[in-house]
């Protein structure tokens, strides 16, 4: 399904890589649409229609959008919401470092490739020897972007019709989505970081009744310090987050 990377490919082969990426990315784009609808419904009362749409159009980062919105919705501060988003996005640093050697062109072009980096596409674009197929990654991201923005628009517009999102169980989508990220990607690896996930969950549960909203999630990131004792961190075979 995924073509092997050949750095000497011509433009036709690069187009074929992008086309293959588009085909591989379609299932994730469908999931992205559903999640974006729920994001629009839930985020509109919290961020306003403009804020929800701006985040989807210009951040295009599902985890950070859901995470920061959840912090604000629960009464957390702007700083806590931003920090949660930054922490949730921090995984793009090692992902980008892994991608960088496979990128052509100058800094601006490389930065543009970086913007196309979402979890599922990045994982699917991985090739033997730690290389990546950037054109495949861009292709795999392409279907998700319009579905993410379009789904957010639908969610923002449908919010008034739906009324109370809880009646449709939409408030269960947030935790179910994050659980899917954990079980489908991060914990379905050779060196699955179960102890980190359990420690993060425990920290959050213990601190929730004791600290302001947002703090438990940020404090849970301390569980990642367990990585200092691990020589080889688990690398996801694929992550389930359709939009970063």
């Amino acid at each position, binding site marked *: 399904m995924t073509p092997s990377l050949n750095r000497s490919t011509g433009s036709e082969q690069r187009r074929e890589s992008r086309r293959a990426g588009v085909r591989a990315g379609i*299932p994730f784009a469908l*999931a992205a649409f559903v*999640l974006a609808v729920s994001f629009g419904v839930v985020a509109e009362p919290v*961020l306003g229609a403009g*804020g929800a749409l*701006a985040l989807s159009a210009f*951040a295009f*980062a599902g985890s*950070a*959008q*859901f*995470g920061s919105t*959840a*912090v*604000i919705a*629960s009464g957390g*501060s*702007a700083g806590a919401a*931003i920090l949660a*988003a*930054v*922490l*949730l*996005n921090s995984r793009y*640093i*090692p992902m*980008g*470092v*892994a991608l*960088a050697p496979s990128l052509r062109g100058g800094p601006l072009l*490389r930065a543009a490739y*970086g*913007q196309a980096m979402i979890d599922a596409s990045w994982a699917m674009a991985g090739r033997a020897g730690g290389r990546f197929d950037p054109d495949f990654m861009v292709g795999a991201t392409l279907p998700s972007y319009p579905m993410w923005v379009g789904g957010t628009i639908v969610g923002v517009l449908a919010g008034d019709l739906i009324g109370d999102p809880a*009646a449709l*169980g939409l*408030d*269960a989508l947030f*935790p179910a*989505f*994050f*659980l*899917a990220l954990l*079980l489908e990607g*991060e914990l379905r690896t050779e060196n699955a970081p179960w102890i980190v*996930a*359990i420690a*993060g969950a425990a920290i*959050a*549960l213990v601190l*929730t009744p*004791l*600290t*302001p909203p947002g703090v*438990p999630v940020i404090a849970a*990131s301390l*569980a*990642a310090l367990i*990585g*200092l004792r691990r*020589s080889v961190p688990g690398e996801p075979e694929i992550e389930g987050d359709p939009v970063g």
Partner: protein
Amino acid sequence: MADTTLVVAVVIATTALIRASGPVLLGGRELPERVNSVIVLMAPALHAALVMTDTFRGEGSDLMVDERALGVAGAGVVIALRGPLLLALAVAMALTAGARAI
């Protein structure tokens, strides 16, 4: 209530910067292994925490078990059985909404 415009603007800016940082600034260089080991584990730690707070946080800072727990558990079963993501999300919604309707 937080300043949502500020949050939206900063989240947009930091997301773009973080996504660009590896390809632009670090080039082909690797982060120190120990730093990388911690960063890679940020996602599972944060996602596990979000599962807990979004499932069990009630009004204010109280912990509570309600219909969300049933929906999330159902989604977990679907995922554990390697069911598709869309089905897991649909099960989460259906179980939660159904339990509330009863």
